[in-house]
């Protein structure tokens, strides 16, 4: 005797959640994959582009995940 179970979801994804997650996606991707000092520049000015603190902190994962670096 075989038994099958089918899961049917009736509700859709909340729009607020999509907007919040899309913002997190864009911000996180920029932090790890593309920041060259931009995020700290409003506080530290040009020095942030020389130090590239976040770039250096995420350096190894940036290379390992395939993002361009240096």
């Amino acid at each position, binding site marked *: 005797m075989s038994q099958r179970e089918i899961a*049917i979801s009736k509700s859709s994804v*909340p729009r607020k959640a999509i907007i919040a*997650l899309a913002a997190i996606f864009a911000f996180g991707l920029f932090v790890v994959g593309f920041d060259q000092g931009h995020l700290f520049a409003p506080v530290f000015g040009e020095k942030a582009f020389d130090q590239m603190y976040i770039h250096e902190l995420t350096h190894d994962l940036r290379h390992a995940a*395939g993002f*361009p*670096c240096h």
Partner: protein
Amino acid sequence: MRSSLFIALVLLSGAVAGTVHGLVNLVLVEPYLDSAIGIENQQLFDSGKEKDTPEFWANYYSYRAWQKGGEILAGAILGTAIGSLFGIVFGLSKNVLPGSSFVKKALILALIMWATLYVIPFAKYPANPPTVGEPETIILRQTLYLAFIAISGLGALGFYQVYKRINKKALAFAGYAGLMITAFIAMPPNPDPITLSADLLNGFRMVSMVGVSSFWVAVALILGVLWHKIDSDKVTREKYQ
């Protein structure tokens, strides 16, 4: 499902899977990164920009320990970010994805996103270790890489919409393949020369791919299991013999 619960599930699965990615990298990728940075150090000594002193090495090991710790943090951040995209797409597509359970559906979606957002872009712009990449070309390389990922991801989405209208899978797939072949030929290659040995380069690229793949497997399993466990989505289960 409530917004807060949905967001919590997605963020948790992304952060944990990203941490897994970081840990896998620490074990598999770091030896290659250390070798490549060792070449950079030798170039600094040869050019006279740095001196091979105990002080240099003390600073170097301290700095590298900080960067290796940062790899776990960066893994969690990137995992949360990519996991957010995965969660959005999963939430919107779970009813049309093939598979008899949420775990299987999540694994199938992860396979599609891994292929379109990582493997295909990797074929055009593969990962490179330190020593490859000129600072002057970073903006160009970032733009090219992001553009190729966007073309691949949006192209897949667009041709899926085409498939839904014409109901011809092979034609939609051929359209996507044609788009990516065109992009592959039309877009310029990475402009920077590669001076590393083939062994180091290929070994790095292989373990890099293993690391990223571990993220996609982990995020699908975690989100699929959590979704199944909580399942407060007012699921209707129909049982029949």
